[in-house]
């Protein structure tokens, strides 16, 4: 397993903090997910139930089981896992599929892309769960990792994903991806793609 040095930003002070991007999800990462993320997620679920918050207003990834996703994907060549750690804590997880979809954008139609199946940020980085945000930059680093994977695999930086409603603006505004609208084959989730040119612009902003 390889790691790359990256930076996250501490939300309160805006200072850069050293972090690590791992090109797999290890058993140690899963232990951290179970011992640190799951209790906070369970607490959030109980709070939402007791407050009678309708389910469609819950954080949409509360039920994701990263243990199952990791175990299922490990033997498969199509699936690549990533983790981000900082200060010994698990900050983010991602699963990318290299064979799920080909590009739908007219200029790229039918060409291969790296499809982000799932990406999650630690509960303490999500104000809607913990009320605070310790670190920023997990999503941006994960998108960058997917672009690098796409380039390494010969896909020229093309990536795609279906966005949960709560994250759609991040992919369009922050990442500069093309919005292709709701996908009726995928629970009407908004579908986004990044072209090679958009990937270059994202990685090397003017």
């Amino acid at each position, binding site marked *: 397993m390889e790691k790359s040095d990256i930076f996250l930003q501490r939300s309160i002070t805006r200072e850069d903090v050293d972090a690590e991007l791992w090109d797999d999800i290890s058993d140690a990462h899963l232990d951290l997910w179970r011992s640190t993320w799951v209790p906070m997620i369970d607490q959030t679920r109980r709070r939402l139930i007791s407050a009678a918050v309708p389910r469609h207003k819950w954080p949409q990834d509360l039920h994701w089981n990263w243990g199952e996703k990791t175990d299922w994907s490990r*033997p498969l060549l199509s699936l*690549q896992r990533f983790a981000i750690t900082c200060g010994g804590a698990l900050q983010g997880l991602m699963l990318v599929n290299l064979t799920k979809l080909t590009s739908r954008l007219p200029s790229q139609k039918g060409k291969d892309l790296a499809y982000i199946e799932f990406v999650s940020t630690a509960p303490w980085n999500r104000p809607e769960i913990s009320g605070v945000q310790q670190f920023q930059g997990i999503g941006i680093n994960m998108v960058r990792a997917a672009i690098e994977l796409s380039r390494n695999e010969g896909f020229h930086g093309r990536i795609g994903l279906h966005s949960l409603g709560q994250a759609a603006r991040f992919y369009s505004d922050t990442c500069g991806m093309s919005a292709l609208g709701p996908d009726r084959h995928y629970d009407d989730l908004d579908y986004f793609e990044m072209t090679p040119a958009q990937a270059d612009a994202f990685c090397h902003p003017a």
Partner: protein
Amino acid sequence: MEKMWTGSIIHVYLSHDTINTMAEKRTMTLNLTDAEMAALEDLAAKKDLNKTVVIRQALRLYQMVDQRLREGKKVFIEDEMTKSKSELMLL
């Protein structure tokens, strides 16, 4: 009379470690007939990929389909216009 093989040879770089993106690659020599090489070159051109990547993608897809079938799932190809489905059978 012994028939001469008239196909093509390409070198394919396959990952030594299936998990690691940056994994060390191993080289194998792949002998293809002219028709197979033509199909490979056609796919590479259409998909904007090099030939090694096409073969690696084919291996990933084949493994994924095989896994789904072994899980008891079915793989269908749907006609976008008519919505008719045909099951992909791998024996």
